[in-house]
């Protein structure tokens, strides 16, 4: 007790000085922290927030890289929504791509992960082999390969022919099928969500599954009643990640269609149309409006996902 009062008494008279010292130390520490953060702060201001504001401003202008931007109010947005069929085509193509390829990819990833999870020897090898396409999937080389695989004299038509399925020509040149090839490509890269599923599955305690077994639950029941509910946070995480990624896919569509988004705009991803508007037509104002459109849609879809997650994602306990 005495010690405490003694200490308090000693601190009393020295109070202001000590406080100054502490404040000075705090300021110094803050300064040091900002030194560490300097590159990141510069990047956020100069390459992220600044450009975001700039593109918001540009979206209300007509700007073609030469001369000054001229204010046009909502004209770009008006054109987007009411006067540009290609814009809506690109929205439709992207929506179909995201809505179809992401769930398919995740279903594949989850199925394989569950199959691999318990009691398969050589797990590491299979995991690596299945993971490889994820690393290569966004490369130009694989897109080149895909274009060839699904062309009229490519491997797919050839193999389908030998098992007796007569495909009418290649998918790449068929406006009805071209997007499907890109769906297949995205599903092919199921390895990275699979690895995340595997890590999640390993967190599930063996006792729970054993208990379900003892209670007489079959494999299917065990999956739907025990494993899947426990895994929903991981499913959700993968869903968010893959959807954001799918919205931004660009390279495969560009390569498969040689930059046109064809045939008949069937592979005109939103990002590809944005690229054409901004960097081929140099209509920077319009491209900025499109960029903000994408930003808002991704934000809204992510927010919706989070809102909906309350109904199906179970966080432990």
């Amino acid at each position, binding site marked *: 007790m005495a010690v405490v009062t003694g200490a308090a008494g000693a601190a009393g008279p020295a109070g202001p000085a000590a406080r100054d010292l502490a404040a000075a130390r705090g300021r110094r*520490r*803050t300064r*040091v*922290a*900002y030194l*560490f*953060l300097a*590159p*990141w702060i*510069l*990047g*956020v201001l100069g*390459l*992220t927030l*600044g*450009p975001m504001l700039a*593109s918001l401003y540009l979206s209300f202008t007509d700007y073609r*890289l030469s001369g000054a931007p001229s204010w046009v109010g909502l004209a770009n947005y008006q054109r987007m929504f009411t006067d540009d069929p290609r814009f809506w085509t690109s929205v439709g193509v992207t929506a179909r791509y995201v809505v179809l390829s992401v769930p398919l990819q995740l279903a594949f990833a989850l199925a*394989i992960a569950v*199959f*691999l999870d318990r009691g*398969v*020897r*050589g797990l590491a090898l299979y995991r*690596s*082999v299945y*993971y*490889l*396409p*994820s*690393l*290569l999937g966004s*490369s*130009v*080389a*694989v897109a*080149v*390969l895909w274009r*060839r*695989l699904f062309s009229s*004299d490519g491997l797919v038509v*050839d193999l389908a022919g030998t098992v007796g399925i007569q495909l009418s020509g290649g998918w790449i040149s068929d406006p009805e099928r071209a997007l499907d090839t890109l769906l297949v490509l995205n599903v092919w890269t199921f390895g*990275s969500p699979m690895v*995340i599923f595997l*890590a999640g599955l390993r967190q599930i305690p063996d006792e729970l599954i054993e208990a379900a077994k003892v209670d007489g639950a079959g494999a299917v029941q065990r999956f739907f009643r025990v494993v899947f509910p426990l895994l929903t946070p991981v499913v959700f995480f993968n869903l968010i*990640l893959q959807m*954001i990624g799918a919205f*931004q896919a*660009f*390279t495969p569509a560009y390569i498969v269609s040689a*930059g046109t988004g064809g045939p008949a705009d069937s592979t005109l991803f939103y990002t590809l149309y*944005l690229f054409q508007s*901004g960097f081929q037509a140099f209509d920077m104002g319009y*491209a*900025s409006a499109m*960029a903000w459109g*994408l*930003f808002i849609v*991704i934000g809204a879809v*992510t927010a919706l996902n989070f809102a909906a997650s309350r109904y199906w994602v179970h966080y432990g306990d």
Partner: protein
Amino acid sequence: MATRTASRRAVAWIAGQGWKHLLLLAFGFAMLYPLVWMFTQSFTPNDAVMGRAGEGGFTLDNYLDGWSALGVSFGRFMANSFLVAALSIVGNLVSCTLAAYAFARLEFRLRGPMFALMLATIMLPFHVTVVPQYIVFHQLGLIDTYVPLILPKFLAVESFFVFLMVQFIRGLPRTLDDAAALDGCGQLRTFWSVILPLCLPAIGVTAVFTFIWTWNDFFTPLLYLTSPDKYTAALGLSTFQDATGLTNYGALFAMSVVTLIPVFAVFLVAQKALTRGIATTGLK
């Protein structure tokens, strides 16, 4: 007699675990078959009709033709890609470790909001910023240089890696920092001599992913590079496809294989780090 027991053992194996392995192997083979096909086609003479893997003879002409088919050789494209990737790795490692140390260990005002901002930028589509960025680089006369490709890495724009490092550093015991402080280390010394050496696994994951992403990146070079002798491998390959169209698939495949080799090599060397990396952070 021996064969009977052997075949019986095989049947037992298939009935036990074997069927799983057969299924998994077949599936893996089907998945990788397109790559195998591309590889074998790259050694097949062009006049042979497109066949399955391994049909139609053997030649190295595709590689020789493709390598110098454009005015600039593929060796140059590859060297450019290596240069960009190496500088990107340096940039990401420097900027992301510094920022991560501050977020994980230092006290400062605005730490909370800044950290939230960092997390938010992970989800930000880069298309939102690309138009103004292009305009700025254009006005600074930096189009057709590597600055627009590399500068963002030195400014920690890929905040994935900041997050990854923050998570990693948070896992290190704080007593290490305290001991260093008692020994009279300043923050920089603590960072450099205590924290950084322990971060090697996270640094490895960052380096590997930076390499693969930069190597595969097509959008940024497409946007900023205009003279062919500065093209990266991805852009060179795309140009090659545009130039030859559908006529010379052998050479196109050969050069595709060439551009995939570095990624494949990194995959072979670092697959453990890769799978661990995505398992903990969800990187692609």
